[in-house]
């Protein structure tokens, strides 16, 4: 635990509403504990702004444990900041130096319109899931759990993909603002399990069609999504998505 406090310059994107003009506003924060989290540093700034009667910086956050997927901002050009494999709420100030200048921006993508300051609308992800990201099973109709054995290896791979928290960092990181990593994680999760097989073909087609319709870009194999994913979802899921998609098209009756 270090006791050297940090004084920092923040350049924060402020935008009053979806159609308002945004700009970087400069703030100075003083005496920040290196043990504080990045979001606590913003809380401190916001409380100072509130005390002065100014509007605090709007940003989203909830669990602060890296699992709910609510938080997310671009810090010095990188979604969720400079470290690998963590969300913004898990980033701590000890990774910054006294006197640093930090740029803070919202996730930027056509499919994620800005609502206010650092808050964007990621409901497009929900819309994709609503189009087919599920197994159609009504409550009460499930068979005995152990009547469906699952190969351990597949269960592990499915879990790797299912770990996605839907934060949108993959989209923000991608120069094409593609949602392929997000979609591939769900397609993989369900295609790897026997329970997901009856809807294997229809699911991937519906989800991909919805993704395209919502204005996400295409994948051009850059790999920024994998590099910035706080849950380290692998890009091999995109390869699986492609295989699933072509397979579904080949098997299609139309």
């Amino acid at each position, binding site marked *: 635990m270090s006791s050297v406090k940090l004084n920092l310059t923040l350049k924060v994107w402020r935008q009053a509403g979806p159609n308002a003009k945004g700009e970087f506003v400069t703030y100075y924060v003083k005496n920040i*504990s290196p*043990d504080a989290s990045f979001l*606590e540093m913003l809380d401190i700034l916001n409380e100072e702004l*509130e005390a002065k009667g100014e509007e605090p910086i709007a940003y989203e956050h909830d*669990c602060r444990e890296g699992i*709910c997927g609510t938080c997310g901002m671009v810090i010095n050009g990188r979604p969720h900041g400079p470290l690998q494999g963590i969300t913004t709420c898990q980033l701590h100030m000890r990774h910054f130096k006294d006197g640093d200048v930090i740029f803070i921006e919202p996730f930027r993508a056509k499919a994620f319109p800005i609502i206010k300051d650092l808050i964007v609308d990621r409901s497009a992800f929900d819309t994709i899931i609503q189009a087919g990201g599920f197994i159609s099973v009504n409550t009460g109709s499930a068979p005995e759990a152990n009547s469906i054995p699952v190969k351990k290896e597949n269960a592990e791979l499915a*879990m790797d993909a299912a770990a996605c928290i839907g934060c949108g960092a993959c989209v923000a990181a991608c120069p094409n603002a593609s949602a392929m990593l997000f979609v591939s994680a769900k397609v993989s999760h369900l295609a790897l399990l026997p329970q997901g097989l009856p809807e294997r073909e229809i699911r991937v087609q519906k989800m991909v069609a919805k993704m395209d319709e919502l204005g996400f870009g295409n994948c051009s194999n850059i790999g920024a999504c994998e590099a910035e994913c706080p849950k380290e979802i692998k890009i091999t899921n995109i390869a699986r998505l492609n295989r699933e998609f072509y397979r579904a098209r080949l098997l299609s009756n139309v």
Partner: protein
Amino acid sequence: MALESKIPAGPIQEKWTNHKFNLKLVSPANKRKFEIIVVGTGLAGASASASLAELGYNVTVLTFHDSPRRAHSIAAQGGINAAKNYPNDNDSIYRLFYDTLKGGDYRAREANVYRLAEVSNNIIDQCVAQGVPFAREYGGLLDNRSFGGAQLSRTFYARGQTGQQLLLGAYSALSRQVGLGTVKLYTRREMLGLVVIDGIARGVVARNLVTGEIERFAGHAVVLATGGYSRVYFLSTSAMNCNATAIWRAHKKGAFFGNPCFTQIHPTSLPLHHEQQSKLTLMSESLRNDGRVWVPKNKGDKRPPNQIPEEERDYYLERMYPSYGNLSPRDIASRAAKRMCDEGYGVGETGQAVYLDFSDAIKRLGKKVIEERYGNLFQMYEMITGDNPYEVPMKIYPAPHYTMGGLWVDYNLMSTIPGLYVIGEANFSDHGANRLGASALMQGLADGYFIIPYTIGDYLASQKFILVKTDHEEFEKEEKAQKDLIKRLMSINGKRTVDDIHRELGKILWDYVGMSRNEQGLKKAIQMIRELREEFWKNVKVPGNDMDLNQTLERAGRVADFLELGELMAIDALHRNESCGGHFREEYQTEDGEAKRDDENFAYVAAWEFKDVGNWVLHKEPLVFEYVKPSTRSYK
């Protein structure tokens, strides 16, 4: 008003089956004539809305999150209990019922807890069918592990992310219904008021958190699935936005509040690092299997832990509870840590922490074994604290985690307001005075998937199809009341921030209505909370505009409610002259400092009726134990 628990007659094994048969049905053609409003999309809310929509009801779902998948159920780590008996270790529905009732220190209803155990197996079936990637054996079948409070392995898990996977399962079922158009989903809406017409719940008003507008939603029944209230302590393991507003506003409209003082303090959280910390992070309790808890023998010893020689360390759990040692139960371990810190032995910058030391285990088993067992937890710890727990002991401290208390409900999960149902952590029902690990996920999904879809039909079958319109004068009145409240909050323009007051409230509750309570402290807390409430309404500052996205205003409304709920928690704790589960009254302990229950005078649910702010009337629902005779728990 007399409390009717509506517990069915008959042997405990047959109560739920018989009750289901006696419930009235709504025919498929008539189901689509009913509108049900569900508030909250955690395990309970998402599973309920999906299941009700599958049955054919029209469902409207509100969540204050940007997406239903964000609810705090997602953060549950450990697992979910069920009485499958897959490991062949002699588990049964009856044993799960027994363990849960005993774990709750005999302050829950037998019939409810039995039903919970009874449907536990259906939950696992349902989740597997949805594609929840539970841990599996090499043969492809489901794996189990053991958890606190049980002598067998009945916990199903998906790595350390069981809550996430179960919620995503319920979310996918909900999303499917949204896609089909049977559920209307409204995100970024915060319920502010319940609309009660002629004594019956008929709808809610909610604030659109983006535009600031107050919107009206009418229905034939309202289901609250809005979670627990441990954020009342400010620092807790709950998510930042968890709050009591929905249940509190319903309470003020006539729903009784059950056992508000029953809160769970979890012993192994990361301690406070600095004064401006926003929340606390839980570390899995399993760490105490190999870690030894200690503090320096000398008060205020500031040396680094590795420089404190063995003979100057106090392994206080091993000293005070020799037979359980570091594996003493949650309430014991939490209280002991607090006592050591209060007496000045605490470590770290704030003095509010104790060491959890793995050096002996590493010496005994080697670093590799410890890494296999706890690698991800050690990594998470290092990420937050910057300390490497392989080299230096962890620092831990207890933290508010879960609230067993909540709105009172009958066996059908209906509150004292007809038409208002409360499910999941938001109700008081199944955990008594203490919840066992891996039981919260079970209860949330039991309520949502398998109980409310049956019980709500019985109520709706007796309702007329005519829907109250949102231009009814009660909707007008409720909307105006909420607008006035918002106007009042915006116009105070005082000097203190919302968080500043919330932090002060949290400290009062933590000090006097936390792990250890006494009459004098509780009386003092009541006084302090009243004064702080007055201060809030005179001196809080909410900048910005109410017809806009305004997060300070959102928090202000929640803190205003916490300032009332906090007082009721203290009043409830003061009236309960016994110690049980998470409620420890210093005056009521055995000679060796253990909780001393008073079954003769306090074997009841305390259900509080709201009269006015600061004025409640107590109603008692006696608890009858026909199957499990209450006994004393000892850990020495």
